[in-house]
């Protein structure tokens, strides 16, 4: 049995004045979605995959850009790719460019521990869709997942 973490008033509002922020459990997917996480730090990749799985996605993880490009080139299909901009050997920008050059049109979210002035523009120019500071939050991810799941189709 998994140890139960404390519940109660210290979970109530995340310090936001009584308004509870998004949780990764606030989404129920109607479709089977898949995601690839590209992050060179094992711990970060595990956390990111954990969040996606808790939302109901099937996930795969790789620790460098070359492996990500090879996976896509081999025909693997994903609805979502999360790429850390800081990767060993081939950085996240180049990885994004090469994935797009293969004709892959899925949603690509770029994440970075630091966001510089031109980082977002560079990522969008490389073919990325959404750029976020690490760690990627439910507020950023859940609307993307709902869109991918077609939950906005009636809007």
């Amino acid at each position, binding site marked *: *049995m*998994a*140890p*139960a*973490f*404390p*519940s*109660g008033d*210290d*979970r109530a509002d*995340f*310090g936001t004045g009584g308004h509870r*922020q998004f*949780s*990764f*459990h606030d989404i129920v997917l109607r479709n089977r979605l898949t995601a690839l996480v590209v992050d*060179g*730090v*094992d*711990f*970060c990749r*595990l*956390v*990111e995959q*954990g*969040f996606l*799985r*808790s939302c109901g996605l099937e996930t795969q993880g790789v620790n460098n850009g070359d492996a990500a490009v090879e996976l896509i080139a081999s025909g693997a299909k994903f609805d979502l790719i999360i790429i*850390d901009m*800081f990767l060993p050997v081939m950085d996240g920008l180049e990885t994004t460019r090469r994935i797009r050059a293969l004709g892959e049109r899925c949603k690509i979210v770029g994440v*970075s*521990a*630091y966001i510089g002035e031109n980082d977002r523009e560079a990522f969008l120019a490389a073919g990325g869709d959404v750029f976020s*500071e*690490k*760690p990627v*939050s*439910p507020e950023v991810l859940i609307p993307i997942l709902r869109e991918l799941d077609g939950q906005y189709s009636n809007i």
Partner: protein
Amino acid sequence: MARRMLDASNQGLLLQFWLATSSLSKGKTRMDRNRLQHQAASMRRSLFDQGYLDEPFIQLEELQDDASPNFVQEIVTLFYTDSARLIQNIEHALNSRPIDFDKLDDYMHQFKGSSSSIRAKKVTNECTVFREYCSAENAEGCMRSFQQVKQDYAILRRKLEVYLQMVRQAAVSQKA
């Protein structure tokens, strides 16, 4: 040294906690089990209030379930392993002459990514300060900031271990 890292309020919590577990081992009451859970919650609250963790840390706890019963301990252990490696790399880079500030920046970039992913607030903030010194190639500033990073990390690690031990004990008490 570990005891010095626990401030007075946390030492008080820890003492109450050990008294409660001790009474539990003698076969006591639901009240003791509730007290353990309450104390674990208080310890976590103090981690938030003292700025060592950000409240979205709770999102990580919510990933633990019967399918992944040790998820939090696994990621925390991996965080310690990654952090130890990066701290060693940064120390080595700071002791090299001349200092390679690009390499330093790369290591700290990774460390900030890790610490932000576990919602380690103080450590993450100090990583940002370090990076500013690094960008300015201010070696003395980097060294001072890095001392703070290491201190904040060591305290966080010690408090987190205490908290997770409390959670485990509270879980054991529920089975009793």
